[in-house]
């Protein structure tokens, strides 16, 4: 009798710890990625997202804990894992002197696309990133958005089963960001497992099946964007604009009744506003109702001040 192996998660991390001197960058991290889904890694700078990404490729070695990537034990079988995954770094590192096609071809060789299918794989990657008509341009002549698309196309040339995206749209214009979102969304439709770190909440809400909120090197909340919002921020928020004194007054009114508030510059939002008693609402003056969102959750969970 043969045992059918349980379907292996694309990523499996248990109790992972990584320290740099006195700093515990990753501190007992547990994480699973269901195959074929997109998991967003959300957290402020310094929460341990990038270190986590580097540990998955064996570019940082965990002090302790268990890491399995596509069933391979990392770092011991890291190379086998890397052959089956595509990595899009946050910091661009294209070869400026080479053409778009040459950049992808070099990566196809590094990622072990067999020689006979290399040309087709490169053409497919060019097509997917909509760079076919710029194939013979030197990279140095490309716009910022095209460079980012090339960076993604290069990592996908070997049709990886798992893709790591480290802040894929950081520093891009909103229009260009949309193009990148289309690319990522297509990955999900194609059944590729994706881990995407980001601190753009909207990005996570749109693209991720599942979100893990990280803080101080561990996951502090996990779920679908909608479930996280419902659990931590409720349905609605009531937002008030005004001078600091007025905002403080609103806080002082609702906080004793158990309602949480969130400041954003010249405004304060009262969360779970749907549960506010009517007489309290009337006393607060003019406010705007809006749907609760993942950003509310993020700030509630990770604090209003950024981690250093």
């Amino acid at each position, binding site marked *: 009798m043969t045992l059918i192996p349980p379907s292996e998660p694309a990523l499996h991390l248990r109790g992972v710890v990584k320290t740099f001197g006195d700093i515990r960058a990753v501190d007992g991290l547990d994480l699973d990625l269901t195959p074929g889904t997109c998991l967003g890694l959300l957290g402020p700078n310094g929460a341990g997202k990038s270190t986590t990404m580097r540990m998955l490729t064996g570019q940082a070695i965990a002090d302790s804990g268990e890491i399995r990537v596509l069933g391979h034990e990392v770092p011991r079988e890291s*190379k086998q894992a890397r052959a089956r995954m595509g990595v899009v770094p946050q910091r661009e*590192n294209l*070869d400026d002197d080479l053409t778009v096609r040459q950049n992808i*071809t070099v990566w196809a060789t590094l990622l072990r696309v067999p020689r006979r299918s290399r040309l087709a794989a490169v053409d497919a990657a060019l097509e997917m990133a909509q760079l076919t008509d710029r194939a013979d341009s030197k990279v140095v002549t490309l716009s910022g958005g095209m460079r980012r698309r090339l960076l993604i196309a290069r990592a996908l040339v070997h049709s990886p089963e798992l893709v790591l995206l480290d802040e894929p749209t950081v520093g891009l214009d909103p229009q260009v960001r949309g193009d990148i979102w289309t690319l990522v969304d297509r990955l999900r439709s194609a059944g590729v497992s994706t881990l995407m770190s980001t601190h753009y909440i909207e990005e996570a809400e749109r693209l991720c099946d599942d979100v893990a909120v990280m803080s101080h090197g561990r996951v502090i909340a996990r779920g679908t964007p909608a479930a996280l919002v419902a659990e931590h921020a409720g349905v609605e928020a009531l937002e008030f604009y005004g001078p600091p004194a007025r905002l403080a007054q609103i806080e002082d009114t609702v906080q004793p009744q158990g309602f949480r508030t969130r400041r954003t510059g010249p405004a304060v939002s009262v969360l779970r506003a749907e549960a506010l008693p009517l007489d309290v609402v009337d006393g607060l003056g003019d406010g705007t109702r809006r749907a609760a969102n993942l950003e509310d959750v993020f700030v509630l969970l990770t604090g209003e001040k950024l981690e250093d």
Partner: protein
Amino acid sequence: MATTQASEQRLRAVEPTAFAGVFTREITLFRRIWKSSTFGSIVEPTINLVAFGFGFGALVTSVQGIPYVQYIGTGVVASAILFSSVFAGMYDTYVKRYYMKTYDGILATPVDVPELFLAEAAWIAVKSGIYGCAPLLIAMLFGLPPSWGMLAVPFIGMLTGFGFAFMGQWFSGIVPSMDSFTYVQSALVTPLLLLSGVFFPISGFPQWVQTLAQVNPLFHCVELVRDAVFGWDPVSDLVSVLVLCVFALVMGVLAVRVLRKRLID
């Protein structure tokens, strides 16, 4: 500890596929920059050859029974090999690691640290072997008689180039910034060059300096090149080959070790 165990695991195998990937990348890049790279590597030794050949050649007719122009012509082969290997190892490796983050990209593909730097050193070694032949061809224009032994020169250049490429990579991993390469150049590369017999025989130096020259890899490179051109001396040439092999091996281990520390957290 988990860290050392993991490192040893990676050190064990060098896969041809990974090596070929990095090597191919270098060839692709070289097709873009070969003109400037080749120009520097050929013109500099040529200027040395012509200047010393005519300048000293007017004072010194022969050294150790060899016409001076032929002596310097064969010597400059070694300096061409040295320059095209150690500087490529230092500057290119530093720039790719620190500024361009090239290695962070490559190490996220199925390539490990030893494969990466072995392949890059191999490419530098091949270039050194080829560039090392340029002064020889020019010396032939000045009357150096062709010999079968000359066919060994590219291989001597490759072996020497391997060691110096690794040495350059090693330095690129230990310097705090690129400015420090000036120290390496003044305090190490220049003495190595002057103490190798490229321009003049080391027999004029005090005995202890001559003994010191025995551990200078460039000295052995010069010896091998001259013997290849003018006639082999089996025992001493074998020793020279061994010295160069050991040099390359030690430098390779040091380079991989320090660069792994820099690239893998």
